[in-house]
């Protein structure tokens, strides 16, 4: 038997020409096929917060649905107008044109409310409100900035209503942001901005999770959101002492696009977070179970599924009723916060110029640093090594009021944080005096670093700044060659005779 087959194979095997042609075809075909097949990229999808799983499935569905309606997915984004994101190339409202009756309107007088990208020929003009909403969109053919006039093709048979809103290059900024985000940021910060991309687990500290809407290094007061400029600055300068590198060579417009996308992700995350929080109390698996149990206790005839159905009915009633209003209020408030952060009044600006950096000022700063008023030393340590007593004691989680399992400090994301070692000369939020002033005045959002703006006077803060900025050099003077400098201890002598 074996012999037989072997002979057959043998004969076929030796008819080279036939074999060759077949094999050649197979290989080339396979290669081409695979090349083509490989071009279809796997789609990026947002994933939900982990704590969504505490909700009952019905509530989970609702959360997903709301997010899908208002934010969509990375590849089919929904531009929710309520959120103050620069989605479009430009947007504006139609300002009435003079007598155009009977003619096709091809030049629109407009008032631009936002201009994020230069308006160029060929961009789409999409109506966001008015009678042309949902109609085929015309293209921009000309733009006169001084007259604020946009030429479109094809023209309109009738003028739109005054105040009708439109967007030029709709969504372009966000799309651009998404593409850049995928290239530069995603593998650390994750598709949904959860700071949990594939590379994240190797990094110390962990990449920022945007979904609380909190950013640490900002120029605004302690409770305010970060501004666009703050985010843009971080992208440009990086954060020394972390793995966030500087993306200085991104073009201004690319940088801005990423900022918008990051803000959008943060807003999405916040909405998700709040939704879950809102439903957690009554509609978590646990809560529903206890509701069912208590319902059955009071009425022993009730079956478990019937009791549960009743709770679900309650949920549906809530969702179609009160919830709508609450959601509207919440999201409006949230959007308002982001808008407020951009206003000049939100910025932390010292009223007093920096106190001259004199030994007296530093000595005063040192006093304050150790004092009960500022309590810097309790975390940062007496000599600024970041080894204060608080790092050794068990802290309370401000959100749950329960003790953490391990001693030390934690941030709002649940990651352990170390107070900055001030002897190293590394300042994550920037090394300008102003930056240090802001860190002290407004604290660091999301971390145990409190805001001292109300406790300390301006000159006191400046004294501390003067002292802190001198710590690296002071430390070096004390112990020559150790712990000094941006690049760590034991800076080797330059005289490497090469």
């Amino acid at each position: 038997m074996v012999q037989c087959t072997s002979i057959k194979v043998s004969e076929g095997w030796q008819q080279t020409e036939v074999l060759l042609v077949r094999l050649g075809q197979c290989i080339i075909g396979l290669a081409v096929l695979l090349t083509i097949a490989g071009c279809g990229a796997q789609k990026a999808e947002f994933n939900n917060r982990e704590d969504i799983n505490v909700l009952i499935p019905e509530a989970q569905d609702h959360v997903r649905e709301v997010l899908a309606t208002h934010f969509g997915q990375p590849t089919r984004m929904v531009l929710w107008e309520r959120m103050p994101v620069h989605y479009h190339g430009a947007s504006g409202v139609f300002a009435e044109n003079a007598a155009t009756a009977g003619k096709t309107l091809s030049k629109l007088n407009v008032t631009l409310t936002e201009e994020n990208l230069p308006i160029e020929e060929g961009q789409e003009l999409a109506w966001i409100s008015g009678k042309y909403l949902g109609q085929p969109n015309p293209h921009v053919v000309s733009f006169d900035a001084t007259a604020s006039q946009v030429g479109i093709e094809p023209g309109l048979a009738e003028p739109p209503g005054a105040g009708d809103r439109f967007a030029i290059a709709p969504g372009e900024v966000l799309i651009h942001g998404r593409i850049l985000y995928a290239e530069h940021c995603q593998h650390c910060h994750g598709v949904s901005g959860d700071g949990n991309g594939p590379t994240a687990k190797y990094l110390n500290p962990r990449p920022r999770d945007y979904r609380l809407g909190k950013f640490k290094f900002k120029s605004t007061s302690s409770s305010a959101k970060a501004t666009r400029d703050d985010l843009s600055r971080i992208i440009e300068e990086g954060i020394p002492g972390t793995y966030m590198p500087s993306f200085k060579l991104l073009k201004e417009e690319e940088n801005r696009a990423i900022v918008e996308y990051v803000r959008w992700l943060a807003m999405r995350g916040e909405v998700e977070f709040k939704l879950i929080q809102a439903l957690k109390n009554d509609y978590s698996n646990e809560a529903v179970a206890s509701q069912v149990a208590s319902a059955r206790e009071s009425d022993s005839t009730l079956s478990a599924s019937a009791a549960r159905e009743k709770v679900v009915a309650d949920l549906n009633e809530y969702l179609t009723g009160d919830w709508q209003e609450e959601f509207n209020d919440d999201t409006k408030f949230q959007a308002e916060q982001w808008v407020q952060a951009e206003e000049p009044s939100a910025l932390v600006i010292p009223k007093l110029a920096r106190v001259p950096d004199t030994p007296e000022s530093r000595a005063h700063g040192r006093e304050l640093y150790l004092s009960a008023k500022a309590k810097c030393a309790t975390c940062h340590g007496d000599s600024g090594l970041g080894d204060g007593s608080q790092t050794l004691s068990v802290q309370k989680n401000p959100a749950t009021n329960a003790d953490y399992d391990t001693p030390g400090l934690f941030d709002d994301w649940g990651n352990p944080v170390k107070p900055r070692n001030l002897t190293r000369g590394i300042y994550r939020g920037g090394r300008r005096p102003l930056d240090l002033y802001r860190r002290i005045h407004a604290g660091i959002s999301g971390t145990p670093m409190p805001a001292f703006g109300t406790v300390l006077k301006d000159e006191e803060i400046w004294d501390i700044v003067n002292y802190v900025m001198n710590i690296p050099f002071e430390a070096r003077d004390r112990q020559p060659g150790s712990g000094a400098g941006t690049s760590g201890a034991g800076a080797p002598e330059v005289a490497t005779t090469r």
Partner: protein
Amino acid sequence: MVWPIAAVVLCWLAPGWNWWFPAGPSGTGAAMSPLGERIDDLFYMILIITTVTFVGTQIGLGYVLFTGARRSDQPEDAEGEKAWFSHGSHNLEVVWSIVPAAVLLFIALYQMEVWAEYRVQDAFPKQVIRTGPLAEVTARQFEWRIRYPGVDAEGNPLELKPDPQPTDLYTVNDLRLPSSQPVMIWLRSEDVQHSFFLPELRVKQDAVPGLVIPVWFEAIKSTEYSMLCAELCGWGHYKMKSRLVATPEDEWRVWLQELQVEQNYDGVSDESNDE
């Protein structure tokens, strides 16, 4: 044996398709530093020698194959059917040992001077030795942190000290130095090994942890150059994108002064009250 011809043709056409030295500010791919130009000259010299050798040997190979093929096509009993029986030729061996040896030795010795000038400190340009380093470039995962000396009250740069000073100024991924003069930097690494690479200037030097390595170069033109990392330094190796901005020296001084003002900004003082 079409392929050597294809290879040569491709190489010959390549610059035309911009597949050659990075085009850089000149747009032609010419090196943007005097030393770089000499490196390019050496490169072209070797290119010519190797191309000649390459074409020569491949043609030789092709010829040998062609005649060999003819011989094996001849009928068995024809004259000269057998291969040429030879165990080699001593003279030929000597020739083809000595000629390449001479060429190779020539190449090696011819390169020495440029190398010395680039790396041996005693052979550094006088000006560089006089002025000392203008900046310290510290590579870290995954960016370049740059430290400049501060400026004094008259706006002249101070001397750069090995250890950080309170007056020092910092930038990241943005190295700015005077153009049209040899300048020196100190190169060091904060974590792993990196390599400081300026493709348009033909400068490359590893940043070795624990060493401070002086590197000098001269940018001919006042413009922006690419600066990147050329030694595997971790997952973000490719991210170390940065630039060298070469400006005339007086502009550089002005920029340094501006940097000082900016670095000391306290949010209030709008004037040059930068102390």
